[in-house]
């Protein structure tokens, strides 16, 4: 069924594709990121209750959404790496994990900075905040585990398994605000209903979400390229590439 995907799993092809996509993704990411954040932070109207403080939503929500999005993509790559033993997928796990961890840190930090003036506290151990913190620990676990074994293959397998198992946390994060009493408010846009945010604030938010997604994709391409070169450094095609790069200078 997935036979048509096979050629893309070849490191050399994947390296070319990542190199081809990276400049476009990065350009699009920077453009949308500028548009979304400047529009959201400076040109949207203030909220009727929270005044200007709510503007941090334009950074908090995109980073939180993609901290979970990055985790799902990492887990899919981990599944492919474990079951089909695709090397490139295993490198993708290592490429995505630190980016996802940083997105999670951004989400937690902007959430705290938003919570202090609005709720009156930096942190509270409610279900949403705690499960997002666990997501950060899962990322750190995946990163740490891959380097924790003398045999790199064992480390890669262990971290891939942890990445898959951690998927259990994703629905908990998303539904925590519905299943339990939390200080964190419910979902504004990720629900099967009309977003409960005014259109003048929704558009920059959607652009920011798109921007963070593109940014994640671009950084993944860049990191995956490096991982491919590192792991394939003794292969002829990498030597050829290095030789032609030296000649080009």
């Amino acid at each position, binding site marked *: 069924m997935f036979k048509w995907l096979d050629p893309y799993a070849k490191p050399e092809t994947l390296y070319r594709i990542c190199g081809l996509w990276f400049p476009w993704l990065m350009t699009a990411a920077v453009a949308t990121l500028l548009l979304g954040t400047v529009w959201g932070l400076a040109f949207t109207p*203030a*909220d*009727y209750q*929270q005044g200007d403080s709510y503007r941090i939503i334009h950074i908090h929500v995109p980073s939180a959404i993609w901290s979970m999005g990055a985790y799902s993509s990492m887990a899919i790559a981990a599944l492919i790496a474990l*079951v089909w033993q695709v090397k490139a997928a295993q490198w993708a796990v290592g490429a995505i994990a630190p980016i996802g961890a940083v997105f999670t840190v951004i989400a937690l930090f902007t959430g705290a900075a938003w919570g202090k003036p609005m709720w*009156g506290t930096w942190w509270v151990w409610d279900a949403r905040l705690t499960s997002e913190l666990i997501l950060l620990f899962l990322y750190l676990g995946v990163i740490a585990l891959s380097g924790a074994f003398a045999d790199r293959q064992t480390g890669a397998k262990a971290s891939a398994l942890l990445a*898959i198992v951690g998927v259990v946390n994703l629905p908990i994060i998303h539904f925590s605000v519905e299943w339990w*009493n939390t200080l964190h408010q419910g979902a504004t846009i990720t629900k099967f209903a009309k977003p409960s*945010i005014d259109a*003048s604030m929704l558009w920059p938010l959607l652009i920011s979400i798109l921007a963070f997604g593109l940014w994640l994709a671009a950084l993944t391409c860049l990191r995956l390229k490096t991982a491919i070169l590192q792991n394939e450094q003794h292969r002829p095609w990498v030597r050829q590439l290095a030789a032609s790069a030296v000649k080009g200078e």
Partner: protein
Amino acid sequence: MNPRRKQRLMAVSAILLLLSGAVGAMLYALQENVDLFYTPSQLLEGIGKDKVKPVPGQRLRIGGMVVPGSVKRDETTLKVSFDLVDTGPIVTVHYEGILPDLFREGQGIVAQGTLLDATNIAATEVLAKHDEDYMPPEVAAAMKGIKHVPPSKNSPQQTYPAQNYPSQSYPTKTEPDQSSQQPKPATEAKQ
């Protein structure tokens, strides 16, 4: 799919399935303990199958909507009391300190403190809870008829009833042992 891949896929799926089952069962068992706060109805009617009610002296969090017109401020100190409601019962929170900016009548709040009796709580911390609706002030005025008014302006000066629960004579943060000596209900972990 060759047999070895199939085997690995089955193994990974089995691990994931078992673990989600275990986590699901765990969270189901902990259901009430994961809640951050009691609602006023939970406080008065109890929660769970056993209808466990918190006992006076227990430290807990209470969350609900501030009943409009119920905020009473002391003229000379920072003492304030207000009523909280969710779907029916009303409980009163007594607090001394600065309230968060978002605190206002009709607003959801979460207070942490000690249960004095069935419907009174001496709070040591009051947090404001906001909802997931965001809109400019004009839209809010048109849709909800809400005008942003700081809480200090919309409540007429009401005097704090002096005979009500002076905060010193009740167990507060300095005497945390009080609650642990009493038989522990399952909800203790919620604190």
